[in-house]
């Protein structure tokens, strides 16, 4: 009887383990299938030309599959959006964790969460019909659908990620550290800058990296707002065509299992590797500098 119960318990435990492994299995399947559908392009098009070629003309004859302009577009959009999102996100996090009264906190936190919940297509639509004409007017540029517009929209999508992770990190800085600093005569502001922020750097960097990873992988916004020109941007008002936009826009027209189809999957592989790199870096930082208590700082 007891033995039977034990075997049953063991069976249940292994079942749960199998299910828990499903996330890893899905991740592995994603990798396998992306590579399977993406690698054939390198039979007809060399890897170096694919990564560093400056021409993306997938439908001309002979086609060119140089994704460098797309890569440059992705990186540029991510960089500009981070320049907006990092200060905004971290400052909001500091405000929420250190300055805001509980009641204010209860109001601002849901706002940030709702911002994170806005569907990307709606943000893209907003950027297209409202922000684009507005930018066109005030900066007197040819088109409002450009790198800058996409970066602003993306910034508001990565702010919630940066903010919530940074806030957790700041919040978990032990109270003794703050008290010690205040007791030495530092003002609240000095305590934040010289004690709390250094103590939570690892958490904040994790948030920043994950926010950037969200920005580089975001699709609908760059598809609708970035302008769609596959060229290397020279100013922030240039239209660009980041990798996700290219994949989403062209997949429907690409002939099934043709070179173009393979090239788009290979672009997906590059995108996937980028975000995976970001995520592993974030995970590494979070794990290495885990805050356990005042003693570890």
């Amino acid at each position, binding site marked *: 009887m007891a033995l039977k119960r034990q075997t049953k318990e063991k069976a249940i435990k292994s079942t*749960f*383990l199998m299910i828990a492994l499903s996330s890893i299995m899905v991740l592995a399947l994603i990798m396998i299938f*992306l590579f399977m559908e993406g690698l054939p392009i390198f039979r007809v098009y060399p890897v170096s030309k694919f990564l560093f070629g400056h021409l993306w003309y997938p439908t001309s004859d002979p086609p060119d599959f140089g994704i460098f302009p797309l890569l440059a577009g992705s990186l540029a959009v991510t960089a500009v959006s981070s320049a907006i999102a990092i200060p905004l996100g971290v*400052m909001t996090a500091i405000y929420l964790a250190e300055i805001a009264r509980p009641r204010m906190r209860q109001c601002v936190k849901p706002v940030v969460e709702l911002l994170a919940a806005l*569907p*990307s297509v*709606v943000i893209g639509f907003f950027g297209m019909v409202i922000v684009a004409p507005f930018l066109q007017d005030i900066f007197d540029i040819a088109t409002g659908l450009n790198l800058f517009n996409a970066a602003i929209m993306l910034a508001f999508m990565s702010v919630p990620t940066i903010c919530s992770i940074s806030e957790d990190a700041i919040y978990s800085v032990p109270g003794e550290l703050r008290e010690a600093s205040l007791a030495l005569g530092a003002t609240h502001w000095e305590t934040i800058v010289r004690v709390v922020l250094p103590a939570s750097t690892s958490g904040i960097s994790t948030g920043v990296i994950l926010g950037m990873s969200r920005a580089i992988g975001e699709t609908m916004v760059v598809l609708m707002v970035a302008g769609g020109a596959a060229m290397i941007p020279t100013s922030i008002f240039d239209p660009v065509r980041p990798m996700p936009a290219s994949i*989403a826009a062209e997949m429907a027209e690409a002939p099934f299992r043709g070179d173009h189809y393979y090239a788009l*999957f290979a672009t997906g592989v590059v995108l996937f590797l980028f975000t995976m790199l970001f995520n592993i870096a974030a995970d590494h930082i979070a*794990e290495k500098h885990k805050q356990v208590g005042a003693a570890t700082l």
Partner: protein
Amino acid sequence: MAHTGELAMTVETETTSLTADCLLAATCNLGRRKILQRVMFGVFRVASGVNGLALAVICAFLFYFGLPALSWEFLTAAPRNMMTEGGIFPCIVGTFLLSFGAMLVAFPLGVASAIYLNEYATNRRVVRIIRLGINNLAGVPSVVFGLFGLAFFVTFFHFGVSILSGILTLGMLILPVIIGTAEEALRQVPNTYREASLGLGATKWQTISRVVLPAAMSSMLTGAILGLSRAAGETAAIMFTASVFYTPRMPDSIFSSVMALPYHVYVLATAGTEIEKTRPLQYGTSLVLIALVLGMNLVAIWLRARLQKKR
């Protein structure tokens, strides 16, 4: 002797004046430091206000332009005349089917994963690897999920562009959300519950299924709602796997393709025959979509606040 005394005196006066100087400087400085603090706190307050402003502006615009487009007919009729007139009923149905289906796939998987991680796992190495997998899955861009769905479900399993492919793809996409919230819910169940149950002679599984899960269920539902809203607003993951430009038929099986709200917004706004003319339809569809998504999120936030108060 007198010499040293003189010296001592000068030193003394110097120190006193120095202390006074320091004190004066410190108070001056304190004033300046306080002003700096006030200014910086003001900047932070503004920064967090910007988020609220962004949310408010987006919602206000969509309400202002979208409300006039809403009508009973808009919500219950199918698109007509090359999608330049009529309603969005098929899209609403499609979005409901896709998001609830994805939920049905992801909820059991996610809760079971969380149970393993929080209740059973003893090997830290295994937990770390699983966590890494979950975090990476959470970071995979939605368009890559779309590509995966196209290669795996649509092509490899021959499900075609269908509700089934879309549900499975979206299910994988929201899995990390469900796992995260389910784990949080399990963590909030006090250990005394488990100890009491085990102490009464219950097995681990009996403890989990009859004590821990019922106690954690309401918090898990919050996560389920969040997953549902995430799936409802997702576009890139379904554009190659489940949704189509336009279909005159309502879905009759899990193998039929559907129209969906987010994809409909995208199609109307970028690829329609008359983009300017269908602006009201675009605003209306966007409004319905954000009302759905934000509504679900508000319910989740409210539910969570209520649960926290109870504790």
